[in-house]
Structure formats: C-alpha cells, structure tokens
C-alpha cells in the first residue's frame, strides 16, 4: 500500500525478522495470498499441482466432465429506497439436497452484503476473506470501504486464481458515500455494476418476473414482494433452488433482514395464478 510505504509501517513479520535476525519462517509470516495489502503479490498454490491442466482434463467431452454450475437463485436490484437482496436456501451436492436452509448472504458488515452462488465452500471462504479485508481497511483508513472497492478486492482475488476451478457468482451490495451500490463478481474476474442482477441456475426465471414487475419508484412493500416473487418462481421451476427466501433490504443506515419465508408458503399464496 502506498500509505504503508509513506508512513514507514512495516508488517509484524518484517519487524520480527529485523529484531530477531531471522527471516520469516512461519507460513503466516511469509508473503502469501493472505497479504493483499503488501507489495509481494504471490499467490500460494500447493507445490507440484497444476490446477489449470487438471481442470482442462475434466472438461473434455469424452471422459469425466466436471460442470461448474451455479446451482441456486439469487437476485438483487436497486430501487429508490436502496437495494433489495433475495436469495434461496438450497445447498445441493449433485442430486442430493445437503442443506435446506443455507444462508447464502454473508453479512460483511452492517452496510455491506455479499451473496453466494456456485461452490458453497469457495463462496464462504472468499467472502469471509473479503470481510476480513474490509475490516482491515476500516481499521487502517478510519473510514468504511466503498462498495466499488470491496467488489474490486473480491474481483482481484478471483483473477489471481483464474482458471483454477473456483466457482463463485457473487453480488456485493452496499450503501456508501455514492449511494446504493450493486456489483456482480464472477470467478472469471468479471465485475459489473448494474441496477439488477440475478445469478445461479434459476436466474432466468427470476429475471422474467422481476423485469416484468420492476419500477424505479416502487414502495418498499412492493419491492419486498417482487424480490420474494422472483425467488419463489425460480424455485418453482428450477430443481437446484428451493427452501426459504432470505430477503434483505440495504438502506442508508445499514441493512435489515426483512423476512425469511418458506417458498412453499409463498407459492401457496400465489396459487391463484399457478396450477
């Protein structure tokens, strides 16, 4: 970091090395992928393993094929009162539903949320790492990290491991000095700012109904209803989405968790329209 250099701050490992005359010996002291803030941009990969080559062999038509599908439905959209974030809660392992109520929203801090789709392990780990970096930023700079910067951090993490088989489709939502922010970050390093995103295998279904009902000047209740509807319709048609709808509303003073509605209840309520 530039400020690091200017202020002459040195991280603990270097200081210890200077004091005790030995180089960094512990893994945590060595320059590795945990030390995003420092100059050395090395990324730790287990020795002898070439993830890209391994993955290429898994994507051939004949033979084993690993499909990295984002089996879920998450959606988020901006409107006049902030950002609505709605996710389903089904975690599947192939054809097996491993968890019925898995919270796919990570509450990074009271003004920043991240959604998860893709590999649950990857999402949980990398978004928790993002949360750590956001906290460190807050401590070092005495101001909140912007949504743009947070999404950039995640995107750079993804770019460092590009092609190695990560599977993350995440939306970073927050409210900073520039107002409500919504970014979509992908495992390829894609980072897009937008008004509305939906990720996962059920995203098409969510797009249809949310596009249809979206208005910039919706009331909060209408926006909550639209978010729930999007997820409910997606779970109706997509086998990899289901469970409950976790609905969050990002406001100027932070996020609130609006509701956690069972999808079957929601569909029953809409039943008048569905067979």
């Amino acid at each position, binding site marked *: 970091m530039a400020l690091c250099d200017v202020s002459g701050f040195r991280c603990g490992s270097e200081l210890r090395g200077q004091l005790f005359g030995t180089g960094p010996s512990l893994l945590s002291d060595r320059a590795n992928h945990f030390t995003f803030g420092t100059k050395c941009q090395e990324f730790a990969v287990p020795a002898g393993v070439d993830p890209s080559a391994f993955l290429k062999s898994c994507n051939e038509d004949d033979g084993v094929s690993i499909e990295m599908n984002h089996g879920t439905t998450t959606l988020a959209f901006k409107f006049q009162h902030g950002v609505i974030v709605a996710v389903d809660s089904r975690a599947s392992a192939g054809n097996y539903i491993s968890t019925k109520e898995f919270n796919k929203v990570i509450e990074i801090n009271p003004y920043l949320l991240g959604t998860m789709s893709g590999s649950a392990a990857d999402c949980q780990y990398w978004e928790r790492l993002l949360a750590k970096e956001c906290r460190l930023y807050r401590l070092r700079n005495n101001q909140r990290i912007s949504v743009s910067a947070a999404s950039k951090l995640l995107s750079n993490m993804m770019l460092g491991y590009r092609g190695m088989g990560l599977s993350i489709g995440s939306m970073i939502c927050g409210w900073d000095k520039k107002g409500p922010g919504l970014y979509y970050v992908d495992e390829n390093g894609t980072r897009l700012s937008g008004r509305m995103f939906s990720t996962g295998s059920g995203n098409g279904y969510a797009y*249809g109904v949310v596009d*249809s*009902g979206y208005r910039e000047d919706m009331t909060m209740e209408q926006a909550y209803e639209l978010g729930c*509807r999007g997820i409910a*319709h997606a779970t*109706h048609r997509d086998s990899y989405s289901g469970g409950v709808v976790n609905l969050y509303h990002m406001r100027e003073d932070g996020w609130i968790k609006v509701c956690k509605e069972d999808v079957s209840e929601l569909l029953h309520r809409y039943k008048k329209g569905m*067979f």
Partner: protein
Amino acid sequence: MALQDVCGVGRDSSEGTLFLSRGGAAGATPSYAGLGGGRNPLNFYVPAAGFLGRGPVRFGQISPPPSGTGEAAFLPTAPGTTSDVAPLPFPLSHGTTTLGFRFQGGVIAAADTRSSCSGQVACPASQKILPIHSHLVGTTSGTSADCALWKRILSRELRLYQLRHGRMLSTGGAAKLLSHMLHPFKGTELCVAATLCGWDRGDPTASGPRLVYVCSDGTRLSGKLFSVGSGSPYAYSVLDGDVRWDLTVDEAVALAREAVYRATHRDAYSGNNVDLYHVTAQGWRAGRVVVTKQHINHHDMELWALPGGSGVKFHSSEKIELYWVELGLFLSI
C-alpha cells in the same frame, strides 16, 4: 387409382410390425410403417427411412455441421462463405422462445420471430407457429427445417386419417402420431420440439382446449402450460404468476405477449416480433405484434396492472402495433 394408393386400401403391407424396413429393396419407394397390418389406421410415411441404416454417411447421424442445430431453415449462401463456417463458441439449444397455455377461452400460442444461425439473425420475421389444420396449431422449436417438414407431414397424415376414417384426430392423437413418426430418428441430429395447441371437437368426453408437447427425443407431455426454447425460463416465471383458467381472452393475449417480450428482452436468440395464435372452438386466429422499444430508460415506463394479479405489472411504454387477422377456418370439414 391414385387415391387408392394414397389411402392404402387393399395394399398388401408386408411389415405387420412397428419396425421399418431399413435399407433393403425399398430403394426409392416410400416405406410404410404399419401397426398390426395393412389396414391399420396408423399407416404413415417416414421420409428417408431407407437411409437410416445405410452408410457411408448415414442419414442424420453425422456430426453436426459447424453452423449447427437449431438454426435457420436454410444456410445463408452469401458470396464468399464456404462450407467451413466458424465453429460454434458453445452448443446452442433451441434458440427461440415459444409458449402455449390453455384457459377457458381456448389455447393461446405465442412465439418470437427470430431465426438465428451461428450468431447471426438469419431471418427476423420467421414464422414459428405453424397451423396444422383449422383447430390445431403447432409451435416449433429446434431446427427450423426439421420442424417445417414434420409439420407438413403431420398435416398430411392428419388429413389422410380424416379421409380414411371420417373424423378428425384429436390433439392427443396427433401428438401421438407425431411422436411415433419421430421415433425412428431418435439418436440422430433431428431436433424438433413442438407444442401442439388445439381444440378437440366431437368426442364429448374429451373436448375443449388441449396442449401437448412433443419432442424428437421421445417426450410427449400433456399439460396446461408449456414454454420451449432458450428464452423459456424468462417466459415461465411471467406465466407462472398469472396464468389462470378464468382469464379473459384479452388478459391471456396480453400475458402471452408480455411473457415473450420478457424473453426477447433477456435472451439473445429471441427477438423481433411476437406471433400470437388463439385457438377456439371456431378455429384459430392469428396476429403479429411488432414490439419496438421507444426508450430503453425504464424510469418512464407506464404500467397497467393485471386485474386480480398482485405484484406483477406489465410495461406498456413500447409502441405496440397490433393487428388481428381473422384468418378463421383454415380448411372446412
């Protein structure tokens, strides 16, 4: 007599089973597949059946040409293009949006009108809903050429059935016939996914609107609501929320139009216009809606609410020119 030959009256059919004679002595003559004898009502003609078993390039079983499946009815022969077109970046599947649902006023069938070929829009005004007879239309998805051919074959076979037996085959029967005709091509590159939307008359126990989905891989499903194609997820969620049995005709048409529009909005392989067909007891009528976006900024969109629905509103800011063509009875029985 020609009619006698066509109707198969008195014809000695040597194959008394469901299986076709592959290759063999038939050569150029068409092979008839019969079930249980020459006078069986389900004699139908399978085109090119003789080629199915023959090499070296066995019919339909070659690897797909680079311009791939699910594309235009004809390869555009622009000057300078050779048979080696650029390979597909990813496998395409049914690049279209078609849908059909039934309600108290009949069956609504809707589709977009974009035919795509290797990422190019080959025809922006193609017809994806083909009338089969006066009370049956079929939506098409998959390879345009295959769909067009098989629809015509189906029309002909239905007419022959009607001449032989004096009654029109029901929608379910037509679907079964189409499914059996497509069965010999299972495993080949033939790709037809059709939704037959019709109104059954005559039989009092099974009359009214009927919707059956037939696919060349053997699927045959009867249902109340189907959407086929790459744009189908976008259409499904709009339809799921608001399709009910007791919709009025205007509401149903507006809903179908909105669903296809939503799909064209998000799907790259769907677009241009929306074809709408409405099948009733009196026959079908059709219209084509030109959907042109007056402005992309959806801040200014006006909406109207679907009566009785909650939450989902329709956008009306596009300049929509709707002209109903009362094409009425396609052929009189």
